[in-house]
């Protein structure tokens, strides 16, 4: 089956232009010695087999034709893009984006969560980077505060106690950690509609991976992601990363979002 995706406005990041997208948005690399792969209790390492590459074209073609990938669901629901502004909270923005996308996939009513409400207790209310595993652990244990009670990028310790009780309805209880650098696992998560927070060290950034694509003019595949720079970044808020640059250093896919 010969098939390529209709990419619309999305810009593809590959070997030729990747240098233009390196921007230090605050990601701090996970301490792999202290925090090894699969060490988070709520996010066991994924040992399931991946969907064979030979099947990808057919599945991508079907998802695009029927408009049933996660990006389609989010766009239809009007789920807004996260915008991290001048914070270094890309890990919290991308990981929360994945949790909120899974809300929609599972059928829950979308309710916006504040990335700062999770990043602040992790960083000690300082504007500094962190990594997705910390966010995953916090979201599983305590949850996030709705954006209506804690603005998305507000670093403000006085918000912590008064809003704490509101976290319980906004937890992502179960995740799967994907094997490092495995494009096949990331692609499989996309085909299964499992939103994934993905770290790309070459970019020094964390993004929310949502859908698979087959790139035109090559036999390469790619991953469509929402960035955390608002809906107008890079034309439409999305980026597509060619598989040559899409071997993620750290990946967490959502399994269960609890709450309403």
């Amino acid at each position, binding site marked *: 089956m010969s098939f390529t995706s209709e990419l619309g406005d999305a810009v593809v990041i590959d070997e030729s232009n990747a240098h233009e997208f390196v921007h230090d948005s605050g990601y701090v690399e996970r301490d792999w010695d202290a925090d090894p792969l699969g060490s988070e209790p709520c996010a066991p390492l994924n040992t399931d087999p991946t969907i064979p590459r030979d099947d990808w074209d*057919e599945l991508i073609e*079907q*998802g695009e034709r*029927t408009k049933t990938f996660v990006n*389609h*669901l989010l766009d239809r629901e009007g789920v807004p893009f996260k915008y991290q502004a001048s914070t270094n909270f890309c890990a919290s923005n991308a990981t929360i984006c994945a949790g909120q996308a899974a809300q929609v996939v599972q*059928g829950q009513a979308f309710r916006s969560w504040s990335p700062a409400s999770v990043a602040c207790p992790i960083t000690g209310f300082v504007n500094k980077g962190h990594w997705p595993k910390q966010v995953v652990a916090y979201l599983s244990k305590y949850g996030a505060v709705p954006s209506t009670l804690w603005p998305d990028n507000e670093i403000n310790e006085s918000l912590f106690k008064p809003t704490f009780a509101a976290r319980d309805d906004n937890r992502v*209880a179960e995740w799967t950690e994907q094997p490092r650098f495995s494009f096949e696992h990331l692609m499989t998560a996309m085909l299964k509609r499992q939103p994934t927070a993905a770290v790309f060290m070459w970019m020094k950034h964390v993004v929310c991976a949502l859908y698979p694509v087959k790139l035109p003019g090559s036999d390469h595949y790619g991953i469509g992601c929402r960035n955390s720079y608002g809906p107008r970044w890079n034309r439409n808020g999305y980026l597509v990363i060619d598989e040559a640059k899409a071997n993620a250093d750290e990946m967490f896919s959502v399994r269960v979002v609890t709450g*309403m």
Partner: protein
Amino acid sequence: MTISKRLLALCLVLTLAANGCRLWVVPDQRGGDQSAAEVDSGADDGSATESKIAEISESGAIKAGGYRVLVLLETDFKKPMADGYVQAIYGPEVRSWLKGNSQGFRFFDQHTPIGKEADQFWKDAAKLPHGDLPWLFIFNGKPSYTGPLPQSPAEVLKLLKARKP
């Protein structure tokens, strides 16, 4: 349901039972139509299935849950699902109707670890026995329909609308 339809349904059950298939019937709350769903034959005994449904029907969370819908599916597909399934599960028609007409709906992979789900309703609902996936459960204070997910959004909507209180 008329008497002749009841007799026909009984004959069907007996015939299938004699051939090793098991069927169970969930009476509709409104006393109208009845639905029958085939349970994987030989997997467990039909009376155990019925008693499991009866047990879960007694759950306080299910009784209080109102009109809700659960679809169990398998995302680890060995081959692509039929277009109609994909559209019924991820497409806009069924979801937008449920959004405006139900008290909640979920689409869960059958392997979703549901133990930490906050709402007891979904924990109880996901314990119901089912046959080959994808599988549809419609609740209305109790399981009012349980059967294979129809293969198109239009057919799913027809079932949902018929069961809406």
